[in-house]
């Protein structure tokens, strides 16, 4: 039984939450329409050129040329969606409308910024993927540990530890061993987090913050004490991009998905594998049970402590792999605090992705997109100061976490220590 039926029957005024939400959505959409119409106004004569191919691509496509009148179309569409929200009060459509609306606004914004100029869309998408990798892996690490109800603020520290180890061992013993060591050290810090929160019942957020502090302190200390004088210890071979035959030649998609390095492929595979693991296997079922209702799992003979140790360690290993990207997948050398908060954004990606590996990846791509978009905008000489462009990904994160695009439910026992009786 729903409110709508009663509403019609009795004619009384029932203030339903969803109707209110639909009204708000409608208001936002109409405001966006006005924004596009007046602020992102492009002269009809001007065109925006998006390059789809690069000179060295196997299949070369022509440029995508969008006329300025595109923005008028977007404004009209937004207005239509907004008015529709008011009239139909489309409960189920609210989220979808907002999603479509935001996508349209971003397109209009791109057209506005690019009017009279051009930039490489393919390059931006490829960069989106690359920049998304550490965030996606950080988010995945978050998913793995929060699914067993351990909040993992320490992703940042694990990434940093992975980056450091990758550079050090990679320089000494070669990139493959460096990668293996990074994964192991990440796992070690995962195990440490598990020990602190599971065995010693330390507050999970505090434990995470502390690990971050510790890793930052240790890596910085060693960097200045050792690396500064032995540069050869901090100079690893980078894993280069490897083009997948045939698939890599597909225009636009090819460079984004199939002309990348080990870490991009690894992240995609890990997301697939962990989705399968969490939702289609025995181990995953048990892990999720531990995250939702540890006491129930315990009564059924599932070892809650062991499950948490195992998955948080696994999460650490994933984060260690993600951390190695910074050194072995990108620049080959470590620098103090080089992860620069990417672990926290990974955490946000996990929340945005609703504690699901695929969701985390999708969210990471959104952040990656905001990041690479910001770089393109700086090149296009938009009248927005560069500092504000640089803020864009953070503001996007806040909007996302504020749940403007729908709310999600964390695992029920998330953050709570389990005390076996």
């Amino acid at each position, binding site marked *: 039984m729903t409110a709508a039926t009663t509403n019609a029957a009795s004619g009384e005024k029932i203030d339903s939450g969803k109707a209110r939400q639909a009204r708000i959505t409608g208001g936002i959409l109409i405001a966006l329409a006005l924004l596009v119409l007046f602020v992102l106004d492009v002269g009809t004569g001007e065109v925006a050129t998006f390059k789809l191919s*690069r000179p060295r691509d196997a299949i070369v496509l022509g440029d995508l040329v969008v006329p300025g009148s595109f923005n008028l179309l977007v404004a009209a569409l937004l207005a239509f969606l907004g008015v529709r929200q008011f009239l139909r009060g489309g409960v189920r459509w609210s989220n979808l409308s907002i999603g479509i609306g935001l996508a349209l606004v971003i397109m209009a914004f791109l057209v506005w910024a690019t009017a009279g100029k051009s*930039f*490489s869309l*393919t*390059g*931006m998408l*490829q*960069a989106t993927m*690359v*920049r998304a990798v550490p965030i996606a892996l950080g988010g995945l690490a978050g998913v793995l540990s929060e699914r067993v109800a351990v909040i993992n603020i320490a992703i940042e520290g694990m990434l940093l530890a992975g980056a450091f180890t990758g550079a050090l061992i990679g320089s000494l013993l070669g990139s493959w061993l460096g990668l293996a060591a990074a994964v192991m050290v990440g796992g070690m810090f995962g195990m440490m987090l598990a020990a602190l929160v599971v065995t010693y019942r330390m507050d999970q957020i505090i434990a995470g913050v502390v690990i*971050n*502090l510790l890793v*930052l*302190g240790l890596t*910085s*200390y060693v*960097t*200045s*004490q050792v690396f*500064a*004088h032995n540069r050869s210890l901090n*100079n690893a071979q*980078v894993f*280069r*991009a490897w083009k997948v035959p045939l698939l890599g030649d597909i225009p636009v998609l090819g460079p984004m998905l199939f002309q990348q390095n080990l870490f991009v492929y690894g992240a995609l595979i890990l997301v697939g594998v962990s989705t399968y693991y969490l939702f289609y296997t025995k181990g995953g079922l048990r892990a999720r049970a531990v995250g939702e209702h540890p006491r129930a799992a315990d009564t059924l003979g599932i070892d809650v402590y062991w499950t948490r140790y195992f998955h948080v360690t696994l999460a650490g290993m994933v984060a260690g792999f993600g951390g190695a990207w*910074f050194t072995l997948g*990108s*620049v*080959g*050398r470590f*620098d*103090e*605090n*080089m992860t*620069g*908060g990417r672990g926290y954004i990974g955490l946000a990606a996990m929340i945005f992705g609703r504690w699901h590996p695929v969701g985390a990846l999708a969210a990471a791509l959104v952040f990656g997109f905001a*990041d*690479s978009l910001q*770089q*393109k905008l*700086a*090149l296009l*000489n938009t009248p927005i*100061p*560069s*500092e504000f462009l*640089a803020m864009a990904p953070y503001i996007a994160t806040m909007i996302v976490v504020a749940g403007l695009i729908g709310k999600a439910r964390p695992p029920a026992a998330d953050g709570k220590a389990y005390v076996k009786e």
Partner: protein
Amino acid sequence: MTFLSKIGLAAALVAGSVTAASAFTACQVTDTGGIDDAGFNQTAWKGVQDAMAATGIDGRFLESQAESDYEANLNSLLGGDCDVIITVGFLMGDATAKAAAANPEQKFSIVDFAYDPTIPNVVGQVYATDQAAFLAGYLAAGMTKTGVLGTFGGINIPPVTVFMDGFVHGASYYNEKHGTEVSVLGWNPESKEGLFTGNFDSLDDGRAFAQNLYDEGADIVLPVAGPVGLGSAALADELGTEALKIVGVDADQTQTDPQKAHVYLTSVLKRMDSTVQQVINAAMDGSFEGGLVVGTLENEGVGLAGFGSFEDEVPAELKAELDAIRAGVIDGSIKIGG
């Protein structure tokens, strides 16, 4: 995010190298970047070390972890042990001026900062980096195959953007001379807006920003962001120098980044080590006088490094033109940005 501390110290080494007999001590206070910042702190310290090697003086340094340390660090050096105190970076300008006013007998010198009016016991060291970057821009414009150059900076501040100004103007000057249409992405000298990583420590940003410029067609990139540029070099190494070359900054990066030496077309030199050593020498021989030392092409305070592995690829006529321009800049017949 200088979370706790980001500063390193090689002081064990310092303590070991000090010889007791020295009569003269030069002291350096770093800014928050630390002594191994691959930037001005390190280069200035190299100047002190060069002086130590050349004249057998004592040298020591203190690292500042936070801005509130500047004053404290200066205070702890004021005991009278230091014959000259060298501070680094415009951020230390106020603290240095204050200490200099309180201790008129103490000799100070500050890197990358100029006082107006000058202070009698402080030598400011500044650099006309745009002169050297101008040459780099001209060279790059002459070497590009795509007709597109790129540059990006760490933070939008003058010590950074002065490089970018010179680079852009150099490329325009090439266009003027040769009727070409080489463009520079990433910096607009008029609006003072451009491409910035927002930090001086994310090497990964250096790679991503260079990739961005490469995607837009740039085949030579000038990163002005300290160690961040090492990330750009990693990309050039992976793509191959046919596709992307890097112009180094501050020091000759074929020396400071030997593993990737082959990707550097050249480097825009900012010879802080040389000016620091000059100041120390002046303090030793009694010719020390407060005021300003400006590093220029003329006094070799700034300059262009060699062409490294591209020595053979740079056409002889281009080299000749660069020599002529250098002379023109020195004698004032060529105005940068004019």
